[in-house]
């Protein structure tokens, strides 16, 4: 793909081989959107690995690129969005393939999407059609990916509906989405996503539109199903509470950049990037007594007027004049497994 060259990020090499203990490796991913107003760097050089069975959280505010990252992996970007650089490596049929250069509508991508990598959304109606029964749609998905008869597929679908805690799977399978309550639709969507036993489940804000008691049910379900089926999960959310409850490692994003990456304990107890610290100080906590909150100054800038240098510098309380507005800080490892992109932790002395 000539775009890789244009981005100047990686030399054009053959697809590297992914070791067996890595399920998915995203390397220097760059996804841009093109419109009349200009190009928007929605994802601008993001890298992370996921091991089989691991739960990774991606958190950030609106416009940080967390959803675009997941749409890039699934290759379901809107028409004006393009992956212009980087690699998305995934092991499929004993071979490492680069999803970033795979034809989005091609045979290979269709074999992976829904089968090996599945996705659940904020709004269940994104995943379901209102004019077919949920069983119809789950059975269809199973039969696209597996050589089974209609009867067998139906049995698998009922079994999956049972597993996600639908009250009456034998009856629910023949119901339409409008027959179901919000929480039940969410469960049915999880059943649809898991119907082919994916190795990776991408959950894009699955609990944002539901009530807190339903949210607790869905989080519990994801925890149980993950332990049961052993798939890896990427949990995309703006809610740091959900991140703390569910994930093991976390990536914090701001305006298309990865600002901090580490274990949940690192991020919540030893946050290093001023943005991560600001986010944590911004959320009201349910602790005894009056706990003050300290908001981050200003607001997320327009994607068409991105600041130069570090994208966070106009809002940063620890901004280093002469450095942060000129140079883009690289992601640096400050402790084993804990990475930060911020000049407070060195790296700027060697900049030209």
């Amino acid at each position, binding site marked *: 793909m000539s775009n890789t060259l244009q981005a100047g990020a990686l030399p054009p090499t053959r697809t590297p081989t992914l070791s067996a203990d890595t399920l998915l490796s995203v390397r220097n991913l760059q996804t841009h959107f093109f419109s009349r107003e200009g190009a928007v760097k929605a994802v601008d050089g993001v890298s992370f690995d996921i091991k089989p069975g691991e739960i990774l959280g991606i958190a950030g505010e609106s416009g940080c690129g967390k959803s675009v990252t997941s749409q890039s992996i699934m290759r379901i970007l809107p028409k004006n969005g393009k992956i212009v650089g980087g690699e998305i490596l995934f092991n499929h049929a004993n071979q490492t393939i680069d999803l970033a250069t795979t034809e989005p509508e091609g045979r290979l991508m269709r074999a992976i999407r829904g089968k090996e990598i599945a996705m659940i959304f904020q709004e269940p109606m994104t995943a379901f059609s209102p004019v077919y029964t949920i069983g119809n749609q789950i059975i269809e998905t199973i039969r696209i990916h597996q050589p089974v008869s209609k009867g067998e597929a139906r049995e698998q679908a009922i079994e999956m509906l049972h597993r996600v805690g639908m009250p009456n799977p034998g009856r629910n399978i023949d119901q339409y989405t409008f027959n179901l309550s919000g929480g039940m639709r969410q469960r049915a969507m999880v059943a649809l996503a898991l119907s082919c036993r994916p190795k990776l489940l991408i959950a894009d804000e699955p609990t944002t539109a539901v009530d*807190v008691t339903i949210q607790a049910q869905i989080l519990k379900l994801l925890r149980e199903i993950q332990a049961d089926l052993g798939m890896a999960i990427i949990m995309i959310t703006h809610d740091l509470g959900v991140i*703390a409850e569910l994930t093991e490692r976390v990536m914090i994003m701001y305006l298309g950049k990865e600002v901090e990456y580490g274990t949940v*304990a690192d991020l919540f107890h030893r946050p290093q990037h001023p943005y991560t610290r600001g986010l944590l100080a*911004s959320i009201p906590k349910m602790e005894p007594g009056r706990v003050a*909150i300290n908001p981050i100054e200003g*607001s997320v800038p327009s994607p068409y007027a991105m600041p130069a240098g570090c994208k966070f510098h106009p809002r940063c309380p620890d901004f280093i004049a002469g450095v942060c507005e000129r140079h883009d800080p690289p992601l640096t490892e400050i402790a084993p497994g804990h990475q930060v992109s911020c000049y407070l932790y060195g790296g700027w002395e060697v900049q030209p």
Partner: protein
Amino acid sequence: MSATMANDSANNSANNGAMAKRAIISVRNLVKHFPIEAGFLRRQVGVVKAVDGVSFDLNERETLALVGESGCGKTTTSRCVIQALKPTAGQVLFQMDGAPAVDLTQLGKKELKAARRNIRMIYQDPYSSLNPRMNLLQIIGEPLVINRAVKGRSELQDRVAELLRMVRLDPSAMNRYPHAFSGGQRQRIAIARALALSPKVVIADEAVSALDVSVQAQILNLLKELQRELGLTYLFVAHNLAVVKYEADRVAVMYAGKIVEIAETEALYLQPMHPYTEALISAAPNPDPDTKNRPRITLSGDVADVGNLPSGCAFHPRCQYAQERCRQETPMLAQVGGADGPARFSACHFAEQLELVGIAARVEEARHG
């Protein structure tokens, strides 16, 4: 029932014993039913009991939160308070200092317009609540013009500039249109519009729910500062328990059209007296990985359907403590505990017997295994 409650809250001198609290709005047995119609003749086949006998006092200069899940009636209650919806029954008594109390439900159009100068609203979505074809001067100035609160254009501009400064926006932005502003800035504009007529009471309906966390924190702090500066009273409708804990002095928890518990914020979170409050507190995700493995109460099923309520206590099908009595007898909101502290009310037959778990126990348990 409502009479006892009014007496109790009037007699109770609360945390700061010196200042007696005065109710600025007293809601009494508020009921709002919507008909369910069906068929060609739109015959009424049922009724949605969206709000079903709600009573509370909103005290001067306090923030009272109405909290609950979707369909619990919190928004309908707030709309009935400002008479945006006509209540089916009940009273909304509004009392300005010195003046006799008036029942807003009985007022004519003209009197209501005058009363509404003192009760304003802020909505959830600042993208749909501001007219994109009006500039800030028109948006914020509109209530002033309609109520003839200013004379002439320069007075209008001065007042709008003052309001913009009040919400920490630059007055020079007066001639710009909403599209030029971010979500947080738009919510500031909506607040400035709500404050234009110097109201006594502001009803904030999920005013920070649509905002990013860093901006949400700014608006929460701004609302608190404005309350101190202007002596405002807030009715704060929200679903996020952490936000409510930060913002409110007292909390009323609603379920299926009724208040199930009402108490001072700290007391309610430390020691809930209704199983639903306990479950809400337990379910809220906590941004601390150390509490990840805490025992949780996960309620089964969905929020009760207010078009088809269960018998007895509406919460009983989801309540882990439910007993036979709960299936048959609807509990009333009654005073519980509070011999040593401020009065609090719970609508649970077993409120006094149950030992429910609040946030203190949760943090404790998590830290010590």
